[in-house]
């Protein structure tokens, strides 16, 4: 069964450094998403991406965050200057279309900021 894959599984970074989290969505999916989950809390929406542009973003997704689809298969989340409070699980998801379609999630990247 096709799945969303994310790398790395765990990223440890010094505060202030840039990180890039990588995702390969399911190949025929057109909508891509990033979510984060702080330990013990609920999953929070960050950004959605369609047709090579951001379609929606939350207030969490400030100027320190950016997303890119550099080629036909990868979808990346960059945090320019990490803060301690960026420590969380980051999940990528994809769906065939927007709206009433299930989003399929990867297993996440655990980001630890020191």
């Amino acid at each position, binding site marked *: 069964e096709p799945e969303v894959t994310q790398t790395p599984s765990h990223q440890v970074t010094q505060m202030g450094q840039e990180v890039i989290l990588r995702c390969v969505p399911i190949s025929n999916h057109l909508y891509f998403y990033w979510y984060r989950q702080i330990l013990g809390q*609920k999953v929070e*929406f960050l950004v959605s991406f369609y047709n090579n542009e951001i379609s929606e973003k939350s207030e969490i997704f400030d100027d320190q965050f950016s997303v890119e689809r550099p080629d036909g298969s990868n979808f990346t989340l960059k945090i320019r200057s990490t803060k301690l409070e960026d420590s969380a699980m980051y999940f990528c998801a994809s769906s065939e279309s927007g709206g009433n379609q299930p989003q399929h999630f990867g297993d996440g990247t655990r980001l630890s900021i020191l």
Partner: protein
Amino acid sequence: GESVGLHLPTLSVQEGDNSIINCAYSNSASDYFIWYKQESGKGPQFIIDIRSNMDKRQGQRVTVLLNKTVKHLSLQIAATQPGDSAVYFCAENEGNTPLVFGKGTRLSVIA
């Protein structure tokens, strides 16, 4: 703002019994609802979804019930197995808006 929440944070059931996990939502305009299962160290795994024009949908061993009158969603798992132990999240959205997740219910299956 609008939010989705769960009535119970933990649920323990005997193996073989049926489990019922509940969810309340507040956005009366929500038209799509979805249940995810999250095992330790894994991402949310899609279980079943339902659109607002339905009140019941069945999958393999799982049933989702939607009561729009009281804005309540439930997930029923038949003959619960140890492998069903996980955190279960409901989520909802309206049209193309982002999914809004609840806090989750931890299901523990007692062998």
